[in-house]
């Protein structure tokens, strides 16, 4: 299957180092002037796709972003990392996971990739749904939380991180993978790659043109700040610590 295409998702999110602030009117979080990046899990997904291509197991890596036109920036980064081309699916509002899954399903029908590799969750909405939803819509195999992927012809052996340890499953392609932290360490982008990436194509399509009209299903009533945890105090010695733990009945 060396002519296989791999499709990866690249979501534009608030950078993971930013301390997110909720807007005082409850309408969301502050994004003005805030650093935006590729969702870290999506970088791992892209890295895995690139390694499969470099190993001769895939022919083309297509990076897809769904969202505002500014997501071009994240697609450019993906192209600089090594993706062959980008697809930006523009939406009038922030789409919810079911809509994103439907958009990917429409692109899947068009592109016929052997694998779709996605992050296990986006660090903004923390929903963790799109990969499983996509696999469900396509009625194909899914392997979530992948920490090792061994691709052999038409099937893949995937090691998954689960609550109780490690699970290994074998799936037949086409399939959807969601990736976990330990799968790989994404490469750094070098300057010449950024220059080269400028020549790579990004196709822009509106979600409606893919037949996805409805973008939201749940009504978001408000966004609020969770109650802050009150810090306590420092103790001066181990004796004092043990004393406090005794008073609280822990030892």
């Amino acid at each position, binding site marked *: 299957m060396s002519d296989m295409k791999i499709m990866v998702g690249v979501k534009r999110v608030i950078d993971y180092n930013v301390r997110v602030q909720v807007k005082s009117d409850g309408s969301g979080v502050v994004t003005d002037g805030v650093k935006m990046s590729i969702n870290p899990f999506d970088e791992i997904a892209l890295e895995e796709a690139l390694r499969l291509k470099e190993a001769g197991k895939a022919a083309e890596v297509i990076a897809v972003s769904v969202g505002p036109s500014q997501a071009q920036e994240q697609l450019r980064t993906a192209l600089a990392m090594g993706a062959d081309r980008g697809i930006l699916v523009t939406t009038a509002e922030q789409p919810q996971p079911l809509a994103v899954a439907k958009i990917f399903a429409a692109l899947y029908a068009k592109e016929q990739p052997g694998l779709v590799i996605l992050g296990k969750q986006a*660090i903004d909405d923390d929903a963790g749904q799109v990969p499983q939803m996509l696999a469900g819509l396509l009625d194909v195999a899914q392997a979530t939380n992948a920490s090792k992927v061994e691709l052999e012809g038409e099937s893949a052996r995937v090691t998954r991180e689960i609550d109780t340890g490690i699970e*290994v499953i074998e799936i037949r392609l086409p399939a959807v993978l969601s990736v976990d932290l330990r799968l790989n360490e994404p490469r750094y982008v070098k300057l010449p790659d950024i220059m080269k990436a400028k020549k790579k194509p990004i196709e822009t399509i509106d979600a409606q043109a893919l037949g996805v009209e409805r973008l939201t299903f*749940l009504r978001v009533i408000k966004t609020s700040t969770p109650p802050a945890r009150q*810090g306590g105090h420092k103790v001066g010695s181990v004796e004092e610590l043990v004393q406090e733990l005794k008073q609280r009945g822990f030892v």
Partner: protein
Amino acid sequence: MARVLVFGELGSKGLNSGVAKAVRCAMDLQPAALDVLCLVADESQEGIKQAARLQGVTKVLVRIHDAFAEPLAAVMGNALVEMAGDYTHILAANTTVGRDILPRVAARLGVQQISDIMRVESERVFDRPTYAGNAITTVEAPEGMVVVATVRTASYRAVPEEGDAVVEAQPFNVSPPSHTRFVERREAKGERPDLQTARKVVSGGRAVGSSENFQIIANLADRLGAAVGASRAAVDAGYAPNELQVGQTGKIIAPDLYVAIGISGAIQHLAGIKDAGTIVAINKDGEAPIFEIADLGLEGDLFKVIPELEKLLP
């Protein structure tokens, strides 16, 4: 009136501890019926009886098929889709199994899932955490559609095992897809309390320095009767196995006592311990962010503090 189906996840140790918490969340819907669905290959699974004892449960539905021997999302998801017709809500604990299966079910039912319910405001309005718990989003599910949701187990106490629900078992007809095959599962065996349910947890971070040194954390945990946890940095570095990771993308826990040793306290880690009762931080760096939220902080080198601590513990 709500009719709720809770996914009765089973594992090698019987009923998953998250089920009793998902049932507590379901009770907040004041349901007319609250059924637990156990998908099994073998009717003698111990977890079934445990599910029947959960307070508030109306019926335990046991569906039997060889393909249910392992929790493969494609297999179990299809079964849940078939059962969905009789219910207004389908809930599962936000375990790796629940999170694997439920979005697949939601997509096949054509509904948007709600991930990690932390509070029920009404039958259709729920709070859920976003941005590693730094924001709470209140969402409303549309009328006339089944609500498919996972439950943030750290937000709920388990219901007591004081009930006596009817168990209704019958064979189930599924045609398992051929695209997925279970190969193996490697689970840590040991006598230590489970990280997800333990009253006390002792966690180690990057400063522990090696997997050999991590034994120091484990020994202290044993002295305290605690479970062992780890920061992402410690797991990435190979000091501790993945199932011990606490944080936004690892386990979100709510023990009565959490002892963070050599953990600086990145927001992603704090997301996993916000609901802990008492947080104790031991760290060499007096400026580490963990001290901002710790109830008790001790500045010091863990390799000196822990031996001293063990000497003074009763």
